[in-house]
């Protein structure tokens, strides 16, 4: 069960000179930034290499944007005047995550919802331009947390938020709480049904990790830096 992901609506796939939907930048917008800091011949070269085949006025999908931004950043680092580099990178940075999903919630009721949560994490990471290794960590974290809910405390939900190129994952349930939490986190406890490594694994994979648990439910909050 997935809530409709909240985010800007996807653009129609046709190209034209009409303005892009709010939030989705066009290649010409990126080019305008480059043009302020790089010579025209270099901007042309970058456009030929990374601009794609579509019209310059076509909106860029979040995935496509995440794909080209690192290349444009590299071009700025190579060719922008040293005194202007910081300002140039700031301008480019503002494009990160434009039009991408920034929030989603997956309810965990049935077993397949666990897969749904994994797919959601994968999509958010892809749109945020996370590399494969970081995305794998995010998906694995979500898999562990969502399964814990399904197995021990269903129903519950997993909430996702992307901000400042970091992913925050909150897993919530109203179950009976995690017994032996301290033992589990200290690695002293092994569950019969798993390696007892799920939650400790999550803590090791995440950049920040926080659990609150009690007889009325459990809340695990994790953040992961998507910059890699």
């Amino acid at each position, binding site marked *: 069960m997935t809530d409709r992901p909240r985010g800007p609506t996807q653009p129609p796939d046709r190209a034209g000179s009409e303005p892009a939907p709010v939030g989705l930048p066009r290649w010409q917008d990126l080019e305008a930034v480059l043009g302020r800091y790089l010579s025209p011949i270099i901007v042309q070269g970058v456009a030929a290499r990374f601009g794609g085949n579509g019209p310059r006025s076509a909106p860029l999908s979040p995935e496509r944007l995440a794909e080209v931004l690192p290349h444009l950043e590299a071009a700025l680092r190579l060719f922008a005047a040293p005194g202007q580099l910081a300002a140039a990178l700031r301008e480019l940075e503002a494009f990160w995550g434009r039009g991408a999903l920034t929030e989603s919630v997956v309810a965990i009721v049935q077993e*397949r919802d666990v897969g749904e949560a994994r797919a959601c994490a994968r999509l958010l990471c892809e749109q945020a331009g996370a590399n494969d290794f970081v995305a*794998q960590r995010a998906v694995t974290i979500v898999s562990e947390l969502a399964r814990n809910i399904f197995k021990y405390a269903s129903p519950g939900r997993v909430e996702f938020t992307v901000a400042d190129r970091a992913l925050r994952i909150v897993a919530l349930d109203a179950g009976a709480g995690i017994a032996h939490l301290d033992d589990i986190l200290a690695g002293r406890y092994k569950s019969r049904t798993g390696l007892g490594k799920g939650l400790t694994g999550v803590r090791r994979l995440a950049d920040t990790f926080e659990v609150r648990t009690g007889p009325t439910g459990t809340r695990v909050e994790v953040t992961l830096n998507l910059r890699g």
Partner: protein
Amino acid sequence: MSARETMIPVLRLWDRVLVTLQGDITDDVAAQMRDDVLEVIYRRPARGLVLDITGLLTLDSHLCFVLSNLAAAARLMGTPTVISGMSARIAYTLESMGVELTGVRTAATAEVALEMLGVTVKLAEDSDAARAALIAKLRGEGRS
């Protein structure tokens, strides 16, 4: 979708059993696969089991547990297991998590895994006759 609808094929090749895990695998599907594999080995003993995970999207602690369990059960039935095709991102994630695949040997590819389990390959195109035919063909082309 029931586990039956998304069943993972279990192949028998030269007295070895090969299973390829792909995409996103739910706990039900993994459990069904484990039972199917053990059933196949029970019906006719196998000299080895290869679990190829080249196309697997996520390997978390639970699936690791299922695979180690399967390997341990197969070993009790006299069948050694090799896991092949682990991607860099999965290997790195497992390592970071501190999850171990205990009691399972690993190989880079399914080919290597089958070799580890005693399969030796003899290709038709490598035979003396095939080589002679190829040389004759190349000579013929050189003359024209």
